């Protein structure tokens, strides 16, 4: 009954073909099958935001999607945002603003903020806070994360 399905996905510009069980979550496919452990798994029910990745350019919870559903899709994980020697502007800003401590929420924060910056003006810090409200951080108190995003978006306006 649970035959495996063949899927072809492009993850961080690399094409992968695999046989997967339909119940395999996209988050587990990325971490266990592909070894891309940058995507973190916190709550597995869409509350913590740690597993957020881009699917066809939109941020999604990878724990609320099955790998088989991603067949033919283009996926970007935190590993695709930048590398140690070539961080994205947002990653660099997180580094400079001390926007992480333990780092568990960071991949989800980075992917979410990347999508937010694409879709919303984020004119006020309030908007950044609202936008990040679906990502839990238990270390920083969020202040430095908001500052890191603010630094990339530009000065707060409209207040």
């Amino acid at each position, binding site marked *: 009954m649970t035959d495996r399905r063949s899927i072809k996905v492009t993850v961080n510009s690399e094409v992968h073909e695999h046989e997967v069980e339909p*119940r395999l979550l996209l988050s587990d496919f990325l971490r266990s099958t592909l070894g891309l452990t940058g995507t973190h798994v916190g709550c597995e029910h869409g509350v913590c935001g740690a597993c957020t990745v881009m699917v066809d350019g939109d*941020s999604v919870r990878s724990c609320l999607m099955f790998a088989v559903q991603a067949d033919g899709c283009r996926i970007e994980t935190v590993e695709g945002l930048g590398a140690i020697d070539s961080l994205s502007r947002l990653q660099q800003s997180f580094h400079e603003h001390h926007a992480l401590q333990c780092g568990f929420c960071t991949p989800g924060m980075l992917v*979410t903020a990347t999508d937010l910056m694409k879709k919303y003006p984020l004119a006020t810090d309030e908007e950044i806070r609202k*936008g990040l409200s679906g990502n839990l951080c238990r270390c920083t108190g969020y202040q430095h994360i908001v500052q890191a995003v603010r630094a990339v978006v530009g000065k707060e306006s409209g207040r």
Partner: protein
Amino acid sequence: MKPAKFDYVVPRTLEEATAALATANGDGKILAGGQSLVPMLNFRLLKPALLVDINRIPGLAFIEEEPHAIRVGALIRHRQLETSPIIARHLPVLSEAMKHVAHLAIRNRGTIGGSLAHADPAAELPMLARLLDAELVISSCSGTRRVAASDFFKDALTVDLTDDDIVTEIALPKLTPGTGWAFEEVSRRAGDFALAATAVTIGVTDGAVSEARIAVTGVGSKPLRISEAETLLVGHAPNAELIAEVSTLVRALVEPNTDLHASADYRRHLIGVLVGRALDAAWRRAHGDLQRRTL
């Protein structure tokens, strides 16, 4: 946790989807956005034998304008509703409400059909369906039927759908130009389910309310229209006194539950305050007094 094993099909037509559901003998589930279903699968609260993934059926994701209504395909994502210029123009109260629906990553996936079929008692979309007198188009092997939102929601997580039914479309009558509207919600964090929320519309003729609609959510087992309170407004130009009277009536008529997030008393208090604010804003908006014009 991880989901229990299930069989999985990806129909390419509605007919294939309804046929697949019918073969599951009541043990099949429709997978659309998955934002409510997959958590329940991960927790093994649900262990369906078959998932019917409708995401690749063409023709279920559209927003179309007709003379008197906007037709929305069941697979339209929350983010598409939030950003649709057609919705913004004819149903601005819905655009406003969508900003409060969950978080961006969930709005990118979650669908209108899924939200209505799931019928969380604190969700925004079921309340908007009641407010706007939506009609749902539902298909199964035995044909297509249309159900008014007022008949669709039965109880918490319980709607007028059989195991073989698929919601395919939602028809939303346009608001008349000049209609005042407002949406008010209190939630613990931005994007969380509402502790209490309301959406209202006010039609004005000759300086008095000609039609009022008040919908509430989070304060009972299903989204409600408070028709007794709506009637109080008709024929009057609402002032602070009348709005207070309406709010008091709404408070008296709802039966909220106590849970981890809020007591019944607190929810009852909240809905009174929110309905008052919403009516005030809608009345002013109908007169063009709010910054954002209605239509």
